[in-house]
């Protein structure tokens, strides 16, 4: 009798047998599929481009950059998944810690970082060199959004605006001193993006805009004329060279002109392996800052438009997440990230097209480099987390 009872208990069907699939456990069904597609697609295309364009770059190791970029991409995907497991709202409570860590790590580079081309930006870790300012862009968005919400009921609007500007411009100044002009501009843009979405008065924005215009004039025209240049000579040259291309190799304007020739010569369908501009050292930094020139020359308008479409998809989904967020914190963070991605894409591609100055900003997810790829994937992970939380908390209100 007892035996039978045991058997019957065993064979009874479990009423609530929950066996989550692997995809379920990773949270994949709750992610924004188009956002994920565009990010992974860009990284995959980056590896594809590097595999074709950097075969001869490292003697004896044709897949030097490909292997490393693939590993960074893998790590980036892991970082994204990890980020979606976290409720991003926790970062709001950690804002002071995040902000402190960001400033300390950027400052530490001055003491422990290694110098490359006259600039200290990164730590030399065993596997790759970690550049704190790349991660810092995301950390600034997370921290600054927290500060904005925290200070919601204190002080006049003008004082608040000034305070947030100061909080954003302090790390930007540190990065500027490394010196890394491009990345410090991204910090400024993240600050403006968060403040814009947070609803800073239009009049304040008009003032900020005037301030930017005046400081550009000061830095580029008045200060050199007065004999106290703020920028280093090469920085100034790079910033202004797109206005007057030259013939001298080694000159920034020359390089930009060569990048323009590279892209133009790609025509509609690209030159494929006939590419010369980006193969024979006419265009420098072809695997990092000027990778868009490689795309333009090798794959032509079709390839370049394909890459830009993926970025458009990325930005569109990110903007959409700004509006979907379950709380204001998520909205502000997403606003900061959107501004960051948009600015970087536009400045980098514009640089290759000869309509923006050379500032050394990597093309997100395309340029070779561990810090940039992983930090950008973390940012996309935060966007996904915002999306997921919104979806989980307001299931009934949206038509998905």
């Amino acid at each position: 009798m007892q035996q039978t009872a045991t058997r019957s208990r065993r064979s009874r069907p479990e009423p609530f047998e929950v066996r989550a699939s692997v995809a379920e456990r990773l949270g994949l069904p709750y992610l924004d599929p188009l956002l994920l597609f565009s990010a992974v697609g860009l990284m995959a295309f980056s590896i594809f481009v590097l595999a074709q364009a950097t075969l001869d770059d490292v003697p004896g190791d044709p897949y030097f950059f490909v292997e490393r970029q693939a590993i960074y991409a893998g790590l980036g995907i892991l970082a994204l998944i990890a980020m979606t497991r976290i409720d991003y709202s926790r970062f709001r409570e950690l804002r002071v810690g995040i902000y402190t860590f960001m400033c300390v790590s950027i400052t530490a580079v001055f003491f422990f970082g290694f110098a490359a081309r006259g600039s200290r930006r990164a730590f030399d870790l065993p596997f790759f060199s970690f550049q704190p300012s790349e991660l810092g862009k995301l950390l600034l968005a997370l921290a600054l959004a927290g500060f904005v919400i925290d200070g919601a009921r204190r002080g006049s609007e003008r004082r608040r605006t000034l305070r947030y500007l100061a909080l954003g411009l302090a790390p930007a100044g540190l990065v500027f001193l490394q010196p890394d002009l491009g990345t410090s501009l991204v910090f400024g843009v993240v600050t403006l993006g968060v403040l814009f979405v947070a609803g800073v008065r239009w009049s304040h924005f008009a003032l900020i805009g005037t301030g930017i215009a005046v400081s550009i004039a000061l830095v580029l025209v008045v200060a050199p004329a007065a004999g106290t240049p703020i920028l280093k000579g090469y920085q100034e040259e790079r910033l202004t060279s797109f206005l007057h291309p030259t013939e001298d190799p080694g000159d920034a304007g020359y390089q930009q002109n060569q990048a323009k020739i590279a892209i133009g010569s790609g025509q509609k369908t690209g030159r494929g392996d006939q590419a010369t501009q980006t193969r024979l050292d006419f265009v420098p930094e072809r695997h990092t800052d000027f990778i868009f020139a490689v795309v333009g020359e090798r794959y032509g308008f079709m390839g370049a438009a394909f890459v830009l479409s993926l970025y458009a998809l990325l930005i569109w989904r990110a903007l959409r997440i700004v509006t979907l967020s379950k709380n204001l914190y998520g909205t502000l963070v997403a606003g900061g990230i959107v501004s960051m991605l948009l600015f970087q894409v536009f400045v980098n591609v514009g640089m290759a097209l000869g309509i923006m100055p050379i500032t050394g900003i990597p093309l997100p997810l395309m340029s070779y480099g561990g810090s940039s790829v992983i930090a950008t994937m973390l940012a996309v992970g935060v966007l996904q987390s915002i999306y997921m939380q919104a979806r989980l908390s307001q299931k009934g209100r949206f038509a998905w």
Partner: protein
Amino acid sequence: MYLRSDERRPQMTTGFALRVAVLGGISVALFAVIFFRLWFLQVLSGDEYLAEANNNRTREVRVLPPRGEILDRDGELLVSNRTSLALQVDVEELPSDLRQRRLELARIGRLIGLSLTEIRHTMREELIVDRTSPVTLKSNVPHELVYYFAENGDRFPGVTVEPVFVRRYPQGTLAAHLFGTVGEINPGQLRQARNRGIEPGFIIGQDGVEYSYDQFLRGTAGSTRIQVDSLGNTLGELNRVEPEPGDNLRLTIDSDVQAAGEAALGGTGLYGGFVAMDVDDGAIIGMGSTPSFDPADLIEPTQAEVETLYQDESAPLLNRAIAGLYPTGSTFKPITSVAALASGAVTPEEIIYDDGAFDLGGGNIIGNAGGAAYGSIAMEYALQVSSDVYYYTLGDRMSDGQALQRWARRLGIGRETGIDLPSEAEGLLPTPRWRERLYRQDLTDRPWSSGDNVNLSVGQGDLQANPLQMAVAYATIANGGEVPTPHVGLRIEDAAGRLVQEVAPPPARTIPIDPVWRNVILDGLHAAAQSPGGTSYNVFGGFDVPVAGKTGTAERPPYGDQSWYVVLAPYPNPEIVVAVTAEQGGFGADTAAPIAATILSEYFGGVDADPVGGASAPD
């Protein structure tokens, strides 16, 4: 106005919606700018840019690295580099009109002292190897010519003066025979496995340690990609891969010992060679050969220098210490001793009666040098006085078998020592089989006889050996049976002095040498050098360090007697062996032994080397 912050989702207020719309609008605008610009560049003006890209030409220019430096044991510089200005002609930039080209080459030839035929010959040879690189017509161009070419550049299209690295020898002729030369790789060498990856025009070691350690010394070529216009004019540098200098080579040579040996041997005015070697690991402390030469003369020899260096009968380039072919005379006797003791032909104590004459049979009587007779003697005393009759007897006893040849070969006679220098000679160890073959081929008048073995037992007859082989044989006896592999390389270092690789070749082989044999031979050699009545007592009797050494005086018709001395020190546990030979030097004690004494004196830090004096013993 800041949005209201609460934990709930912000309402889609008009203000918020407007801001998101503005952000979206900016995005659309920026993407539109990029798309239009892209369209303009690639679709509307693509043809122009493609034409510009096709007009962009590059040329890759190889940059040769400086070769590694060569230092002595203590880090003193022996071979380094200097830059020299070389006149080069780029064939692609010469006038395409053949008559004008010929005129220009003739003008160049008049300035640098070469005929048109010579120039064409050089160019043809170099262009076979490498079709694209400029041809070097002359290195070491004097400055006034450089200025002349610079000022008249338009009259000499395609001519450039480039700095190239040339070897420099700060110590002059010191150790000249060890270094060897460097030179451009030739088509045959390009196919060799050891030169894999080297491009035409690269400089490689052609002889000496420059050859043996070339893979470390040579470095890696760099390259510069320069942009040129469609006419080939240089516009600027696009990319530069710096050449990697070669690693430095530290030799086992001690410059002071080397200099002392060269001075002593050179002072006699005779041709010959010397070797000073570590008994245990085979490290060469000094090695020299006379007549010598200035290695700098080999860089770009004049016609007169070519004649003296390469064609003179004195053969100054020949390293007699490793490539000399000489009978060794009595210095061979320790080798005969080992063979006789090992094969049981004699025991250390056995008394053999030396009446001053040995009957070879058939009425052929041979005796001791100087007609001496030593009476009843055992091995130790036979070595001390260098009794020929005693060793004739041993040679005769071993003439039925192969014991003498087998042990001589084990000790390194008649074979290469494996030293890290090319061009060592293996010499000749006469064997019955060798002579029978010559006889069958009618190259000699008689077959092998026991007399050949009797001759060999005292280092005479057909035997041919060099000082290095004798040093190795003596070292093997002294260290108890390990045949050292001699080497002049000590270690490879990078430019900062960090160790890249240690040179420590393992012993060539180990042979069973009974300590009893070793001791009786060393005792005999010690007595020969430092006991009254010993063959070199007049040289080493007063030497402050106990030594064990053997004289040799070899008949070498049609020349005068070959003088030999091989010495181990300090006795009874030697660390160094010195072997010296001098052509037509007479008695070993007269010429070779004093040179060995000078070398040892320097090695032991200037000990008293005053000879006891008196007449040299014949042996």
